[in-house]
Protein backbone atom coordinates (compact mmCIF):
# COMPACT_ATOMS: atom_id res chain seq x y z
CA UNK A 1 0.00 0.00 0.00
CA UNK A 2 1.50 3.32 -1.02
CA UNK A 3 0.31 6.65 0.34
CA UNK A 4 -0.11 10.00 -1.36
CA UNK A 5 3.16 11.00 0.29
CA UNK A 6 4.92 7.99 -1.28
CA UNK A 7 3.54 8.86 -4.72
CA UNK A 8 4.68 12.45 -4.26
CA UNK A 9 8.16 11.16 -3.35
CA UNK A 10 8.31 8.82 -6.38
CA UNK A 11 7.21 11.69 -8.63
CA UNK A 12 10.08 13.77 -7.29
CA UNK A 13 12.60 10.94 -7.78
CA UNK A 14 11.41 10.53 -11.36
CA UNK A 15 11.26 14.28 -11.98
CA UNK A 16 7.69 14.01 -13.25
CA UNK A 17 5.71 16.87 -11.86
CA UNK A 18 2.41 16.03 -10.27
CA UNK A 19 -0.44 18.44 -9.62
CA UNK A 20 -2.05 18.41 -6.16
CA UNK A 21 -5.44 17.59 -7.69
CA UNK A 22 -3.99 14.51 -9.46
CA UNK A 23 -2.44 12.98 -6.36
CA UNK A 24 -5.52 11.14 -5.09
CA UNK A 25 -6.31 9.46 -8.42
CA UNK A 26 -2.67 8.56 -9.07
CA UNK A 27 -2.36 6.99 -5.61
CA UNK A 28 -5.56 4.99 -6.03
CA UNK A 29 -4.53 3.67 -9.47
CA UNK A 30 -0.97 3.02 -8.30
CA UNK A 31 -2.23 0.79 -5.49
CA UNK A 32 -4.53 -1.19 -7.78
CA UNK A 33 -1.64 -1.84 -10.18
CA UNK A 34 0.99 -2.82 -7.61
CA UNK A 35 -1.55 -5.04 -5.90
CA UNK A 36 -1.85 -6.85 -9.23
CA UNK A 37 1.99 -7.03 -9.47
CA UNK A 38 1.97 -8.93 -6.16
CA UNK A 39 1.14 -12.07 -8.11
CA UNK A 40 4.88 -12.14 -8.86
CA UNK A 41 5.49 -13.06 -5.18
CA UNK A 42 4.38 -16.55 -6.16
CA UNK A 43 7.09 -16.90 -8.82
CA UNK A 44 9.81 -19.16 -7.48
CA UNK A 45 13.51 -19.25 -8.21
CA UNK A 46 16.05 -16.71 -9.32
CA UNK A 47 16.94 -15.54 -12.78
CA UNK A 48 19.08 -17.77 -14.91
CA UNK A 49 19.42 -16.06 -18.24
CA UNK A 50 19.26 -18.57 -21.05
CA UNK A 51 19.05 -15.80 -23.59
CA UNK A 52 21.53 -15.69 -26.43
CA UNK A 53 23.26 -12.58 -25.16
CA UNK A 54 26.63 -11.53 -26.45
CA UNK A 55 28.66 -8.37 -26.56
CA UNK A 56 28.68 -6.33 -29.73
CA UNK A 57 31.93 -4.42 -30.02
CA UNK A 58 33.64 -2.41 -32.73
CA UNK A 59 36.99 -0.78 -33.25
CA UNK A 60 37.21 2.68 -31.70
CA UNK A 61 37.54 4.60 -34.93
CA UNK A 62 36.12 8.02 -35.75
CA UNK A 63 33.24 7.88 -38.20
CA UNK A 64 31.12 10.57 -39.83
CA UNK A 65 28.48 11.90 -37.48
CA UNK A 66 25.80 14.55 -37.37
CA UNK A 67 26.98 18.13 -37.63
CA UNK A 68 26.91 20.54 -34.71
CA UNK A 69 24.08 22.43 -36.43
CA UNK A 70 22.04 19.23 -36.72
CA UNK A 71 22.60 18.38 -33.07
CA UNK A 72 21.59 21.84 -31.93
CA UNK A 73 18.67 22.17 -34.32
CA UNK A 74 16.04 20.98 -31.84
CA UNK A 75 17.39 22.62 -28.67
CA UNK A 76 15.19 25.41 -27.39
CA UNK A 77 17.97 27.32 -25.63
CA UNK A 78 21.49 27.56 -27.01
CA UNK A 79 24.43 29.91 -26.85
CA UNK A 80 27.72 30.05 -28.79
CA UNK A 81 27.25 26.55 -30.21
CA UNK A 82 26.33 25.05 -26.86
CA UNK A 83 23.05 23.80 -25.42
CA UNK A 84 21.85 25.82 -22.45
CA UNK A 85 20.58 23.81 -19.49
CA UNK A 86 18.98 24.82 -16.19
CA UNK A 87 21.42 25.69 -13.41
CA UNK A 88 22.67 22.73 -11.38
CA UNK A 89 24.24 24.67 -8.48
Amino acid sequence: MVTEKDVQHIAELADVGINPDELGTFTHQFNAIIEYFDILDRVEGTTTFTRELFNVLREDVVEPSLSQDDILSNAAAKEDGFIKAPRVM
Partner: protein
Amino acid sequence: MAGQITFEPDDRYNAFLTTCRHATHGTGKLAGVAVAVKDNISTTGIETTCASKILKGYIPPYDAHVVGLLKASGAAVVGKTNMDEFGMGTTTENSAFGPTLNPCDTGRVPGGSSGGSAAAVAAGMVRMALGTDTGGSIRCPAAFCGIVGLKPTYGRVSRFGLIAYANSLEQIGPMGKTVTDVSDLMGVIAGYDRHDSTSRDKPYSHSPSAEIRGLRIGIPQEYFGAGVDAGVAGAVKAAIGKLEELGAVTVPCSIPSMEYALAAYYVTCTCEASSNLARFDGVRYGPAADTKKSWHDAYQEVRRDGFGAEVRRRIMLGTFALSSGYYGKYYAKAQVARENVRADFSRIFADVDVIAGPTMPTIAFRLKEKSDPLSMYLADILTVPANLAGIPAISVPCGRSEGMPVGLQIMGRPNEDERVIDVAFAYEQAVN
Protein backbone atom coordinates in the same frame (compact mmCIF):
# COMPACT_ATOMS: atom_id res chain seq x y z
CA MET B 1 10.39 5.36 -62.27
CA ALA B 2 11.22 7.78 -59.50
CA GLY B 3 8.69 10.52 -58.96
CA GLN B 4 6.32 12.20 -56.62
CA ILE B 5 2.86 11.31 -55.41
CA THR B 6 0.21 13.65 -54.09
CA PHE B 7 -1.22 12.55 -50.78
CA GLU B 8 -4.32 14.37 -49.62
CA PRO B 9 -6.39 11.82 -47.75
CA ASP B 10 -9.77 12.44 -46.17
CA ASP B 11 -8.52 11.74 -42.66
CA ARG B 12 -11.86 11.61 -40.86
CA TYR B 13 -10.48 9.05 -38.40
CA ASN B 14 -7.54 11.19 -37.18
CA ALA B 15 -5.16 8.45 -38.29
CA PHE B 16 -2.37 10.87 -39.19
CA LEU B 17 -0.49 13.40 -37.09
CA THR B 18 1.48 14.65 -40.11
CA THR B 19 0.85 14.14 -43.81
CA CYS B 20 3.27 14.86 -46.64
CA ARG B 21 1.22 16.40 -49.42
CA HIS B 22 3.92 15.84 -51.98
CA ALA B 23 5.87 12.69 -51.21
CA THR B 24 8.79 11.73 -53.37
CA HIS B 25 9.73 8.15 -54.14
CA GLY B 26 12.45 6.22 -55.88
CA THR B 27 12.59 3.01 -57.84
CA GLY B 28 12.57 -0.52 -56.48
CA LYS B 29 10.27 -3.20 -55.09
CA LEU B 30 7.86 -0.69 -53.55
CA ALA B 31 8.23 2.05 -56.17
CA GLY B 32 5.53 4.63 -55.68
CA VAL B 33 3.73 2.71 -52.90
CA ALA B 34 2.34 5.03 -50.22
CA VAL B 35 3.56 3.87 -46.82
CA ALA B 36 2.55 5.42 -43.49
CA VAL B 37 5.02 5.43 -40.61
CA LYS B 38 4.14 5.42 -36.92
CA ASP B 39 5.12 8.66 -35.25
CA ASN B 40 7.71 7.10 -32.91
CA ILE B 41 9.95 6.23 -35.88
CA SER B 42 12.42 8.96 -36.84
CA THR B 43 12.04 10.61 -40.25
CA THR B 44 14.54 13.23 -41.40
CA GLY B 45 12.88 16.60 -41.77
CA ILE B 46 9.41 15.32 -40.81
CA GLU B 47 8.07 16.14 -37.35
CA THR B 48 8.19 13.10 -35.07
CA THR B 49 6.29 13.48 -31.80
CA CYS B 50 5.42 10.02 -30.42
CA ALA B 51 2.00 11.69 -30.03
CA SER B 52 3.43 13.60 -27.08
CA LYS B 53 3.43 17.31 -26.36
CA ILE B 54 6.98 16.90 -25.08
CA LEU B 55 8.18 16.28 -28.66
CA LYS B 56 5.92 18.80 -30.39
CA GLY B 57 8.02 20.43 -33.09
CA TYR B 58 10.84 17.86 -32.93
CA ILE B 59 12.37 17.38 -36.37
CA PRO B 60 14.74 14.40 -36.43
CA PRO B 61 18.10 15.09 -38.07
CA TYR B 62 18.33 11.46 -39.22
CA ASP B 63 16.21 8.58 -40.54
CA ALA B 64 15.49 5.40 -38.64
CA HIS B 65 17.21 2.45 -40.33
CA VAL B 66 13.82 1.12 -41.52
CA VAL B 67 12.92 4.49 -43.04
CA GLY B 68 16.17 4.47 -45.01
CA LEU B 69 15.29 0.97 -46.24
CA LEU B 70 11.76 2.08 -47.18
CA LYS B 71 13.14 4.95 -49.23
CA ALA B 72 15.70 2.67 -50.88
CA SER B 73 12.86 0.33 -51.88
CA GLY B 74 11.16 3.18 -53.74
CA ALA B 75 8.31 3.63 -51.25
CA ALA B 76 6.85 7.07 -50.59
CA VAL B 77 6.66 8.00 -46.91
CA VAL B 78 3.35 9.87 -46.95
CA GLY B 79 2.84 10.63 -43.31
CA LYS B 80 3.24 9.92 -39.62
CA THR B 81 0.49 8.09 -37.83
CA ASN B 82 -1.25 8.68 -34.53
CA MET B 83 -0.53 6.44 -31.56
CA ASP B 84 -0.80 6.18 -27.81
CA GLU B 85 1.76 8.58 -26.39
CA PHE B 86 5.19 6.85 -26.58
CA GLY B 87 3.34 3.59 -27.38
CA MET B 88 1.77 3.41 -23.94
CA GLY B 89 -1.77 2.22 -24.43
CA THR B 90 -4.13 -0.21 -26.09
CA THR B 91 -6.60 2.24 -27.62
CA THR B 92 -4.76 5.24 -29.21
CA GLU B 93 -6.81 7.40 -26.81
CA ASN B 94 -3.60 8.29 -24.96
CA SER B 95 -2.48 10.51 -27.86
CA ALA B 96 -1.88 14.14 -26.91
CA PHE B 97 -3.46 15.02 -30.27
CA GLY B 98 -6.82 13.30 -29.90
CA PRO B 99 -7.88 9.69 -30.40
CA THR B 100 -7.96 7.83 -33.70
CA LEU B 101 -11.37 6.37 -34.52
CA ASN B 102 -11.94 2.83 -35.75
CA PRO B 103 -12.94 2.93 -39.44
CA CYS B 104 -15.17 -0.13 -38.86
CA ASP B 105 -17.20 1.75 -36.22
CA THR B 106 -16.31 5.32 -35.33
CA GLY B 107 -17.80 4.88 -31.86
CA ARG B 108 -14.99 2.44 -31.10
CA VAL B 109 -11.21 2.65 -30.66
CA PRO B 110 -8.87 1.29 -33.34
CA GLY B 111 -6.75 -0.44 -30.70
CA GLY B 112 -3.25 0.63 -29.89
CA SER B 113 -0.74 1.72 -29.69
CA SER B 114 -0.29 1.65 -33.51
CA GLY B 115 -3.94 2.69 -33.99
CA GLY B 116 -3.23 5.38 -36.57
CA SER B 117 -1.28 2.97 -38.80
CA ALA B 118 -4.06 0.36 -38.56
CA ALA B 119 -6.81 2.88 -39.28
CA ALA B 120 -4.90 4.36 -42.23
CA VAL B 121 -4.61 0.88 -43.78
CA ALA B 122 -8.15 -0.21 -42.90
CA ALA B 123 -9.62 2.97 -44.40
CA GLY B 124 -7.64 2.48 -47.59
CA MET B 125 -5.60 5.67 -47.18
CA VAL B 126 -2.37 3.68 -47.60
CA ARG B 127 -1.62 0.16 -48.74
CA MET B 128 0.78 -0.55 -45.91
CA ALA B 129 2.19 1.00 -42.76
CA LEU B 130 4.88 0.55 -40.16
CA GLY B 131 3.86 0.02 -36.57
CA THR B 132 5.73 -0.94 -33.43
CA ASP B 133 4.84 -3.71 -31.00
CA THR B 134 6.04 -3.67 -27.39
CA GLY B 135 3.23 -5.75 -25.89
CA GLY B 136 0.79 -6.13 -28.77
CA SER B 137 0.77 -2.66 -30.30
CA ILE B 138 0.79 -3.96 -33.90
CA ARG B 139 -1.41 -7.02 -33.42
CA CYS B 140 -4.11 -5.39 -31.26
CA PRO B 141 -4.99 -2.61 -33.71
CA ALA B 142 -4.66 -5.04 -36.63
CA ALA B 143 -7.25 -7.27 -34.94
CA PHE B 144 -9.56 -4.38 -33.98
CA CYS B 145 -9.49 -2.80 -37.46
CA GLY B 146 -9.59 -6.01 -39.51
CA ILE B 147 -6.13 -5.86 -41.11
CA VAL B 148 -2.92 -7.93 -40.95
CA GLY B 149 -0.02 -7.06 -38.63
CA LEU B 150 3.23 -8.86 -37.84
CA LYS B 151 5.44 -8.51 -34.77
CA PRO B 152 8.73 -9.90 -36.06
CA THR B 153 11.18 -12.02 -34.08
CA TYR B 154 13.10 -9.75 -31.72
CA GLY B 155 16.17 -8.52 -33.57
CA ARG B 156 15.09 -9.20 -37.15
CA VAL B 157 14.16 -5.55 -37.72
CA SER B 158 16.52 -2.78 -36.63
CA ARG B 159 15.32 -0.49 -33.83
CA PHE B 160 17.83 2.23 -34.75
CA GLY B 161 15.88 5.49 -34.91
CA LEU B 162 12.88 4.09 -33.08
CA ILE B 163 12.28 6.37 -30.10
CA ALA B 164 12.73 3.84 -27.33
CA TYR B 165 10.10 2.91 -24.77
CA ALA B 166 11.00 -0.66 -23.68
CA ASN B 167 14.04 -1.84 -25.64
CA SER B 168 14.05 -5.49 -24.63
CA LEU B 169 10.46 -6.00 -25.81
CA GLU B 170 9.75 -3.74 -28.78
CA GLN B 171 10.03 -4.39 -32.50
CA ILE B 172 9.08 -2.40 -35.57
CA GLY B 173 6.84 -4.43 -37.88
CA PRO B 174 4.71 -4.36 -41.03
CA MET B 175 0.94 -3.78 -41.25
CA GLY B 176 -1.20 -4.17 -44.37
CA LYS B 177 -4.54 -5.17 -45.83
CA THR B 178 -3.25 -8.55 -46.94
CA VAL B 179 -0.66 -11.07 -45.80
CA THR B 180 1.20 -10.53 -49.08
CA ASP B 181 1.51 -6.79 -48.37
CA VAL B 182 2.82 -7.53 -44.88
CA SER B 183 5.28 -10.06 -46.28
CA ASP B 184 6.47 -7.61 -48.95
CA LEU B 185 7.04 -4.87 -46.35
CA MET B 186 8.82 -7.31 -44.04
CA GLY B 187 11.13 -8.14 -46.95
CA VAL B 188 12.11 -4.47 -47.12
CA ILE B 189 12.66 -3.75 -43.41
CA ALA B 190 14.25 -6.97 -42.08
CA GLY B 191 17.98 -7.51 -41.95
CA TYR B 192 21.16 -6.75 -40.06
CA ASP B 193 21.98 -3.23 -38.92
CA ARG B 194 25.21 -2.54 -37.09
CA HIS B 195 23.62 0.47 -35.39
CA ASP B 196 21.36 -1.83 -33.37
CA SER B 197 23.35 -4.02 -31.00
CA THR B 198 20.45 -6.51 -30.77
CA SER B 199 20.17 -6.86 -34.55
CA ARG B 200 20.15 -10.38 -36.01
CA ASP B 201 21.59 -11.18 -39.40
CA LYS B 202 18.36 -12.73 -40.65
CA PRO B 203 17.11 -11.00 -43.77
CA TYR B 204 13.65 -11.94 -45.04
CA SER B 205 13.15 -12.90 -48.68
CA HIS B 206 10.06 -15.04 -48.61
CA SER B 207 6.98 -15.37 -50.78
CA PRO B 208 3.99 -16.63 -48.81
CA SER B 209 3.01 -20.24 -49.43
CA ALA B 210 -0.45 -21.61 -48.58
CA GLU B 211 0.77 -25.19 -48.19
CA ILE B 212 0.25 -26.22 -44.56
CA ARG B 213 -0.56 -29.94 -44.81
CA GLY B 214 0.84 -31.80 -41.82
CA LEU B 215 1.61 -28.59 -39.92
CA ARG B 216 1.21 -29.03 -36.15
CA ILE B 217 -0.66 -26.20 -34.42
CA GLY B 218 -0.61 -25.89 -30.63
CA ILE B 219 -3.84 -24.60 -29.08
CA PRO B 220 -3.12 -23.28 -25.57
CA GLN B 221 -6.04 -23.63 -23.18
CA GLU B 222 -5.16 -20.26 -21.61
CA TYR B 223 -6.08 -18.51 -24.88
CA PHE B 224 -9.68 -19.67 -24.57
CA GLY B 225 -10.12 -19.25 -20.81
CA ALA B 226 -11.91 -16.76 -18.59
CA GLY B 227 -12.00 -13.22 -19.93
CA VAL B 228 -12.07 -14.24 -23.60
CA ASP B 229 -15.41 -13.26 -25.16
CA ALA B 230 -17.47 -16.16 -26.46
CA GLY B 231 -17.97 -14.45 -29.82
CA VAL B 232 -14.23 -13.94 -30.25
CA ALA B 233 -13.39 -17.48 -29.14
CA GLY B 234 -16.03 -18.85 -31.54
CA ALA B 235 -14.64 -16.96 -34.54
CA VAL B 236 -11.08 -18.07 -33.73
CA LYS B 237 -12.10 -21.71 -33.23
CA ALA B 238 -13.86 -21.64 -36.60
CA ALA B 239 -10.67 -20.26 -38.17
CA ILE B 240 -8.60 -23.01 -36.59
CA GLY B 241 -11.15 -25.50 -37.98
CA LYS B 242 -10.45 -24.05 -41.41
CA LEU B 243 -6.72 -24.64 -40.91
CA GLU B 244 -7.52 -28.26 -40.01
CA GLU B 245 -9.52 -28.59 -43.23
CA LEU B 246 -6.39 -27.45 -45.04
CA GLY B 247 -4.48 -30.37 -43.54
CA ALA B 248 -3.03 -28.94 -40.32
CA VAL B 249 -3.15 -30.97 -37.11
CA THR B 250 -4.14 -29.29 -33.84
CA VAL B 251 -2.55 -30.24 -30.54
CA PRO B 252 -3.89 -29.04 -27.15
CA CYS B 253 -1.21 -27.42 -25.00
CA SER B 254 -0.77 -25.22 -21.95
CA ILE B 255 1.32 -22.16 -21.06
CA PRO B 256 1.20 -22.15 -17.24
CA SER B 257 3.52 -19.12 -17.00
CA MET B 258 0.71 -17.02 -18.54
CA GLU B 259 -0.52 -16.50 -15.00
CA TYR B 260 2.43 -14.18 -14.34
CA ALA B 261 3.08 -12.96 -17.88
CA LEU B 262 1.09 -9.74 -17.72
CA ALA B 263 2.59 -8.62 -14.41
CA ALA B 264 6.08 -9.55 -15.66
CA TYR B 265 5.44 -7.55 -18.80
CA TYR B 266 4.20 -4.41 -17.04
CA VAL B 267 7.01 -4.46 -14.47
CA THR B 268 9.62 -4.87 -17.23
CA CYS B 269 8.22 -2.25 -19.59
CA THR B 270 7.64 0.39 -16.91
CA CYS B 271 11.17 -0.12 -15.54
CA GLU B 272 12.65 0.28 -19.02
CA ALA B 273 10.41 3.29 -19.68
CA SER B 274 11.49 5.04 -16.50
CA SER B 275 15.06 4.92 -17.76
CA ASN B 276 14.39 5.60 -21.46
CA LEU B 277 12.13 8.58 -20.93
CA ALA B 278 14.59 10.33 -18.62
CA ARG B 279 16.02 11.97 -21.75
CA PHE B 280 12.95 14.17 -22.23
CA ASP B 281 13.85 17.16 -20.13
CA GLY B 282 13.37 20.12 -22.45
CA VAL B 283 17.10 20.66 -23.01
CA ARG B 284 18.11 18.96 -26.27
CA TYR B 285 14.61 18.86 -27.76
CA GLY B 286 11.05 19.62 -26.87
CA PRO B 287 9.57 22.64 -25.09
CA ALA B 288 12.20 24.76 -23.36
CA ALA B 289 13.12 24.08 -19.76
CA ASP B 290 13.31 27.31 -17.77
CA THR B 291 17.09 27.70 -17.52
CA LYS B 292 16.72 30.21 -14.69
CA LYS B 293 15.19 27.61 -12.39
CA SER B 294 17.07 24.86 -10.58
CA TRP B 295 17.22 21.70 -12.68
CA HIS B 296 14.78 19.58 -10.64
CA ASP B 297 12.18 22.34 -10.71
CA ALA B 298 12.74 23.02 -14.39
CA TYR B 299 12.56 19.34 -15.41
CA GLN B 300 9.51 18.62 -13.28
CA GLU B 301 7.68 21.52 -14.86
CA VAL B 302 8.54 20.49 -18.42
CA ARG B 303 7.68 16.84 -17.81
CA ARG B 304 4.44 17.58 -15.95
CA ASP B 305 3.20 19.75 -18.81
CA GLY B 306 4.70 17.65 -21.61
CA PHE B 307 3.80 14.07 -20.60
CA GLY B 308 0.25 12.77 -20.38
CA ALA B 309 -1.03 10.96 -17.30
CA GLU B 310 -0.36 7.42 -18.57
CA VAL B 311 3.25 8.21 -19.44
CA ARG B 312 3.88 9.76 -16.02
CA ARG B 313 2.14 6.80 -14.37
CA ARG B 314 4.41 4.30 -16.14
CA ILE B 315 7.56 6.31 -15.42
CA MET B 316 6.57 6.40 -11.75
CA LEU B 317 5.68 2.68 -11.63
CA GLY B 318 9.09 1.85 -13.11
CA THR B 319 10.88 4.21 -10.75
CA PHE B 320 9.07 2.60 -7.82
CA ALA B 321 9.72 -0.98 -8.98
CA LEU B 322 13.44 -0.29 -9.39
CA SER B 323 13.81 1.66 -6.15
CA SER B 324 15.91 0.38 -3.30
CA GLY B 325 14.17 -2.40 -1.40
CA TYR B 326 11.71 -3.27 -4.17
CA TYR B 327 14.01 -4.47 -6.96
CA GLY B 328 13.98 -8.08 -5.73
CA LYS B 329 10.21 -8.09 -5.27
CA TYR B 330 9.33 -6.73 -8.69
CA TYR B 331 12.03 -6.52 -11.37
CA ALA B 332 14.00 -9.62 -10.40
CA LYS B 333 10.82 -11.72 -10.10
CA ALA B 334 9.54 -10.37 -13.41
CA GLN B 335 12.73 -11.58 -15.09
CA VAL B 336 12.25 -15.08 -13.62
CA ALA B 337 8.66 -15.08 -14.86
CA ARG B 338 9.88 -13.92 -18.25
CA GLU B 339 12.31 -16.82 -18.45
CA ASN B 340 9.46 -19.17 -17.51
CA VAL B 341 7.43 -17.85 -20.44
CA ARG B 342 10.35 -18.47 -22.78
CA ALA B 343 10.81 -21.97 -21.35
CA ASP B 344 7.10 -22.77 -21.84
CA PHE B 345 7.23 -21.68 -25.48
CA SER B 346 10.42 -23.59 -26.05
CA ARG B 347 8.88 -26.77 -24.60
CA ILE B 348 5.71 -26.41 -26.70
CA PHE B 349 7.62 -25.63 -29.89
CA ALA B 350 9.52 -28.90 -29.52
CA ASP B 351 6.21 -30.59 -30.35
CA VAL B 352 4.31 -28.11 -32.54
CA ASP B 353 5.25 -25.77 -35.40
CA VAL B 354 3.08 -22.79 -34.46
CA ILE B 355 0.67 -21.77 -31.70
CA ALA B 356 -2.75 -20.30 -32.51
CA GLY B 357 -5.35 -18.39 -30.52
CA PRO B 358 -7.19 -15.06 -30.44
CA THR B 359 -5.13 -11.87 -30.74
CA MET B 360 -7.33 -9.95 -28.31
CA PRO B 361 -9.84 -11.28 -25.77
CA THR B 362 -12.56 -8.92 -27.01
CA ILE B 363 -13.61 -6.88 -30.01
CA ALA B 364 -12.63 -3.18 -30.15
CA PHE B 365 -13.66 -1.25 -27.04
CA ARG B 366 -16.03 1.66 -27.22
CA LEU B 367 -14.35 5.05 -26.90
CA LYS B 368 -13.63 5.85 -23.22
CA GLU B 369 -14.68 2.33 -22.17
CA LYS B 370 -11.25 1.57 -20.69
CA SER B 371 -10.81 4.56 -18.40
CA ASP B 372 -9.18 2.55 -15.62
CA PRO B 373 -5.49 1.82 -16.37
CA LEU B 374 -5.40 -1.68 -14.88
CA SER B 375 -8.44 -2.83 -16.86
CA MET B 376 -6.71 -1.55 -20.01
CA TYR B 377 -3.49 -3.42 -19.12
CA LEU B 378 -5.44 -6.66 -18.67
CA ALA B 379 -6.58 -6.53 -22.30
CA ASP B 380 -2.95 -7.24 -23.36
CA ILE B 381 -2.82 -10.69 -21.80
CA LEU B 382 -2.84 -12.64 -25.08
CA THR B 383 -0.25 -10.50 -26.88
CA VAL B 384 2.48 -9.88 -24.25
CA PRO B 385 3.77 -13.49 -24.12
CA ALA B 386 5.24 -13.18 -27.64
CA ASN B 387 7.11 -10.00 -26.63
CA LEU B 388 8.44 -11.53 -23.42
CA ALA B 389 9.74 -14.51 -25.42
CA GLY B 390 10.91 -12.50 -28.46
CA ILE B 391 9.04 -14.79 -30.86
CA PRO B 392 7.24 -13.79 -34.09
CA ALA B 393 3.45 -13.36 -33.97
CA ILE B 394 0.95 -12.26 -36.59
CA SER B 395 -2.69 -11.20 -36.42
CA VAL B 396 -4.88 -11.99 -39.44
CA PRO B 397 -8.59 -11.14 -39.70
CA CYS B 398 -10.88 -14.13 -39.05
CA GLY B 399 -14.53 -13.18 -39.24
CA ARG B 400 -16.53 -10.91 -37.00
CA SER B 401 -18.23 -10.79 -33.63
CA GLU B 402 -21.03 -8.27 -33.02
CA GLY B 403 -20.19 -6.89 -36.45
CA MET B 404 -16.59 -6.07 -35.49
CA PRO B 405 -13.41 -7.74 -36.80
CA VAL B 406 -11.70 -10.53 -34.85
CA GLY B 407 -8.00 -11.37 -35.15
CA LEU B 408 -6.49 -14.85 -35.33
CA GLN B 409 -3.03 -14.82 -33.76
CA ILE B 410 -0.32 -17.20 -34.98
CA MET B 411 2.91 -17.38 -32.97
CA GLY B 412 6.04 -19.17 -34.16
CA ARG B 413 9.53 -20.23 -33.17
CA PRO B 414 12.23 -17.54 -33.04
CA ASN B 415 13.29 -16.58 -36.61
CA GLU B 416 10.37 -18.48 -38.15
CA ASP B 417 8.48 -15.34 -39.19
CA GLU B 418 8.16 -16.99 -42.62
CA ARG B 419 6.13 -19.83 -41.14
CA VAL B 420 3.64 -17.61 -39.28
CA ILE B 421 3.26 -15.66 -42.53
CA ASP B 422 2.51 -18.91 -44.40
CA VAL B 423 -0.15 -20.03 -41.91
CA ALA B 424 -1.82 -16.62 -42.02
CA PHE B 425 -1.62 -16.69 -45.82
CA ALA B 426 -3.13 -20.19 -46.02
CA TYR B 427 -6.07 -19.03 -43.89
CA GLU B 428 -6.50 -15.80 -45.85
CA GLN B 429 -6.46 -17.62 -49.20
CA ALA B 430 -8.95 -20.24 -47.99
CA VAL B 431 -11.56 -17.73 -46.85
CA ASN B 432 -11.24 -15.04 -49.51
